[in-house]
């Protein structure tokens, strides 16, 4: 009656209710390490991985690593072992239950601490501490990973007017994490009303039209919420392909839809105790103005008829808080219920987590999970409501195409630079000496990663989902490679150089010459005298068990060339210790420079 499809625990026949939630048991004693999260404020320490124990078929090391590359900030030996006690289905189910930590709470604690010791104020580095601390140590890896994906679809950025708005961006990221396992409709509303988005796409203090002066509402948010956050430019089939009319794609909206929708997004400014003009203009501000939803100021809200996407909100005699809320609900419901949202957002989430070029059938399955709020791959995990993120995420990660047994030449996706650093950090169990994960800004293309979380150059993210590297195999096969948009002659060299230093010395702000975030290579050093064993371990942790034979030979030759001094003198043994470390550094560095690692598949 219950059969499991492959190790990831997907049911092909309806599962009985008892097991649906991955109800523990089995797997050798159920040592359910339900350690409560130790994430508190801005000091982070690694915690026990979420236990995935169940009675399903268990994955191999390589299978587990392959899944964790997609669903977390990267496999570690501990996270692989935890997953190996169970299945992907149970792992996902348990992940959905994990509490989340707050970035806002973290940066506020930092601000209070800094205030207590002087005049320093928080800056972007403090958000990045919180980001890296959670990404590397949080038990809620899936939520973290999905939130990072969402931050690249619903983009705000420190790069620009939000450069000093540390609390506002932290609050925004918290909204992404809050809704990552919720419903996309709620996410759209939270994002729309967030002050950070209001500043970033300028609907904060957007005023109704004024016929006397010819002033028209700002169209920025109206355009981008449709183009980027929900439906895109052309009508789509449920499998993500273009609907055609007379051989041509069909626009989802026209400029007049944008002008109509722009009127809905008039009259919003910072929240607070009243809706007086002075508060609208920011002359009076609540202490928490940037970390609470924006509110309506009816005196600035358009009351003329608003037409968009086939809907008309009739002209009103006067605007009120209630009419503004009603306008917003109509607008967001209309956008959210557009048939494009499932394939448009579903495909991008696949691209962010799994692969650059999903098949139409894969997109179709994920879009259907989005549309219906359930997936047969994980019964019981969705609410059955359109926009359910849990059903959508499960459909993405448990699909057979997510980890096919055989690879075609167009498979895979380039691992983006921030994830590379996270992969390394998690694979080698980094510890932050300060507890604060002071990784800092990693923008520089020539000297760092060419990417920093929440520092995209525009609302179009670090790269576009449709990016095609020119003159490439990807191009000639009509495929896309979004993350290649960050790859240039400068940045590929910068990456190799910066990783050389990081692999050896750790990463982050130095204190007394020691970088804050330090790897723990003890397990690798223990194997380093046996290069084959060392590479076996690194293959699982970094190349998900898929290191090619040629790659392995090349690295092994280099590792073996580092001879290990023998002898019992103290100088010989310390020289041997150095050699073992050099072997580990070399193996990790060379692996992370190889295409085997750089393309996840």
């Amino acid at each position, binding site marked *: 009656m219950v059969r499991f499809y492959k190790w990831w625990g997907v049911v092909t026949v309806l599962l009985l209710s008892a097991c649906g939630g991955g109800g523990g048991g089995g797997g050798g004693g159920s040592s359910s390490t339900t350690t409560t999260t130790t994430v508190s404020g801005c000091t982070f320490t690694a915690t026990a991985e979420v236990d995935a124990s169940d009675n399903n078929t268990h994955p191999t090391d390589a299978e587990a690593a392959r899944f964790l590359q997609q669903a977390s900030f990267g496999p570690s030996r501990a996270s692989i072992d935890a997953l190996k006690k169970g299945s992907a289905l149970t792992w996902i189910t348990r992940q959905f239950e994990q509490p989340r930590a707050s970035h806002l709470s973290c940066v506020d604690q930092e601000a209070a601490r800094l205030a207590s010791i002087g005049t320093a104020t928080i800056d972007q580095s403090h958000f990045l501490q919180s980001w890296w601390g959670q990404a590397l140590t949080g038990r809620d890896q899936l939520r973290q990973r999905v939130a990072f994906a969402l931050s690249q679809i619903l983009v705000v950025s420190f790069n620009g007017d939000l450069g000093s708005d540390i609390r506002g961006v932290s609050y925004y990221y918290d909204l992404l994490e809050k809704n990552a396992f919720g419903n996309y409709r709620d996410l759209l509303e939270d994002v729309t009303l967030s002050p950070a988005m209001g500043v970033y796409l300028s609907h904060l203090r957007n005023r109704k039209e004024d016929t006397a002066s010819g002033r028209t509402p700002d169209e920025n948010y109206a355009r981008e919420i449709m183009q980027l956050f929900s439906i895109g430019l052309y009508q789509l089939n449920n499998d993500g392909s273009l609907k055609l009319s007379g051989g041509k794609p069909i626009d989802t909206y026209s400029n007049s839809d944008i002008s109509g929708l722009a009127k809905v997004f008039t009259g919003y400014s910072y929240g607070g105790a009243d809706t007086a003009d002075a508060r609208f203009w920011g002359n009076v501000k609540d202490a928490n103005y940037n970390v609470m939803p924006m509110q309506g100021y009816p005196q600035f809200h358009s009351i003329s008829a608003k037409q968009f996407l086939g809907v008309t909100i009739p002209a009103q005699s006067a605007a009120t808080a209630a009419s503004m809320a009603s306008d917003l609900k109509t607008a967001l419901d209309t956008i959210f219920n557009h048939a494009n949202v499932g394939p448009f957002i579903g495909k991008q989430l696949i691209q962010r987590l799994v692969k650059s070029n999903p098949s139409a059938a894969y997109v179709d399955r994920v879009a259907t999970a989005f549309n219906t709020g359930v997936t047969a791959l994980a019964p019981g995990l969705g609410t059955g409501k359109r926009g359910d993120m849990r059903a959508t995420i499960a459909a993405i990660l448990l699909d057979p195409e997510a980890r096919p047994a055989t690879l075609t030449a167009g498979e895979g996706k380039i691992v983006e630079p921030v994830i590379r650093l996270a992969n390394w950090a998690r694979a080698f169990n980094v510890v932050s000496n300060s507890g604060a994960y002071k990784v800092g800004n990693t923008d520089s293309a020539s000297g760092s990663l060419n990417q920093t979380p929440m520092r995209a150059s525009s609302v179009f993210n670090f790269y576009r989902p449709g990016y095609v590297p020119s003159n490439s195999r990807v191009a000639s096969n009509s495929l896309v490679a979004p993350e290649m948009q960050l790859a240039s002659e400068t940045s590929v060299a910068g990456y190799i150089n910066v990783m050389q230093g990081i692999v050896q010395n750790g990463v982050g702000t130095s204190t007394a010459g020691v970088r804050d975030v330090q790897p723990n290579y003890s397990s690798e050093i223990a194997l380093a005298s046996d290069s084959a064993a060392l590479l076996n371990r690194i293959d699982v942790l970094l190349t998900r068990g898929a290191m090619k034979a040629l790659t392995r030979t090349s690295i092994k030759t280099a590792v073996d*060339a580092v001879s290990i001094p023998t002898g019992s003198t103290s100088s010989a043994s310390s020289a041997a210790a150095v050699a073992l470390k050099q072997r580990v550094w070399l193996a990790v560095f060379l692996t992370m420079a190889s295409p085997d690692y750089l*393309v996840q598949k």
Partner: protein
Amino acid sequence: MSHLSRREYLKRLAALAGLGSAAPFALNLAGLGAASAQSAPDYRAIVCLFMFGGNDHNNMIIPYDQAAYDAYAAARSGNRTAGGIAYDRSQLTATKFSPATAQSSSAEFAFCPPMAPLQALFTAGKLAILPNIGPLIAPTNRTSYLANSVALPPKLFSHNDQQAVWQSYAAEGGKAGWGGRMGDLLASSNSSTVFTAISASSNAVFLAGQNIFQYQIGTNGATPVTAVNSSPFGLSGAAGTAARTALSQLVTDSVAAGTLYMESDHADLVKRSIDASGTVSSALATVPTSTAGISLPTALANNSLALQLQVVARLIASRSSLGAKRQVFFVSIGGFDTHDNEITTLEDNANTGALGLHSQVARSMDYFYSAMGSLGLQNNVTLFTASDFGRTLTSNGDGSDHGWGAHHFVLGGAVKGGDMYGTMPAVRLHTTANPNLADAGSGRFIPTTSVDSLAVTLGRWFGVSSADFSLIAPNIANFNNDLGFLA
């Protein structure tokens, strides 16, 4: 594939013809040996300066005649004094000008005050204005636009797509741009094709070719991979050699190539990076940033756009060592999406002296022209500006929204400056009583000059033969193929 010699390149083109590819562009390239690709006797370069975000051209070149100015100010919710986004007319007196060829919409215009340095270049005959230029498929006006009776460029008013359309005539995902196509056609003039199309900014589809690759460079020059030349991790002797060998194999050799397209494509890029960095580094070492004429003025010392133009100037100065006779460059500056804070974004801050975007553009262009002069190459290098789109003439309170056509500049010693090439539309909104066929609505101007015309005018000067014009401008048959601003 990175360092193609001229001979190899032509061989590859011939092979391409043999493929019988369905792509007309590839087929046509086969004939280029006879057309564009003759050995060039002198050096020529084209520089694209791209203003990301959609520059508000309406506050860049402004009608000055009282009646025309009044219409402009009215459409922008009034001047500063009235709380609108129009310049006060009194602010424009010092930078007003009359184009050599009269325009019907206004006899006098003005550069915005931050662009006074460009007015000087205009007066000196080195800078020309291209009014209301933008992507078109065929001539279009308000009537045909609203009736949907004319083919339109894809995805109008969308940032990412119009950036791509300006650069490549295709929306996001476009594979080749007209700069790269010119490079394809002329690369055989160069002893190495690697340095034909160079971006000092990010990946730009403008420079993507069918055969050539764009080469991306940082403002400090090339970034070498340290561990290829210098043993990592304190290793020495045989171990150091083995480490360097392994790295080279892994990132550039067949070991790296892999079986997946992305693995191979990434490996090719790393190989191009490593192969070129040595040549670039030694070439640039002969032209340090402190070189007289190349060094940046203090006000631009940390300016991203100026730094990009500086490395372009250094590369141009090193053209012999790079074996380049025909080059296309791309530089950029962002922040032009002025839905709000338009005035403070575009204009200088009177209190802090911080330069607004228009000053940064004007001063950087001025610097670059003078740097070319110091190399004696001002007649050999032509710079043009581009942007996602222009912006609405209407105000949204403290900014403007996405438009279409926009005014742009061409700069160089070969440019017949001091004039406008093309038609400046009436800078006012359409009304039934007073129609304006250039207004698509809210003062989004329908271009009166197509990007195709700009590409061909530049391309002819660059050495592209008339037989190849359609390769760099697919719609040129519908438009003027010589705007006349280059001799």
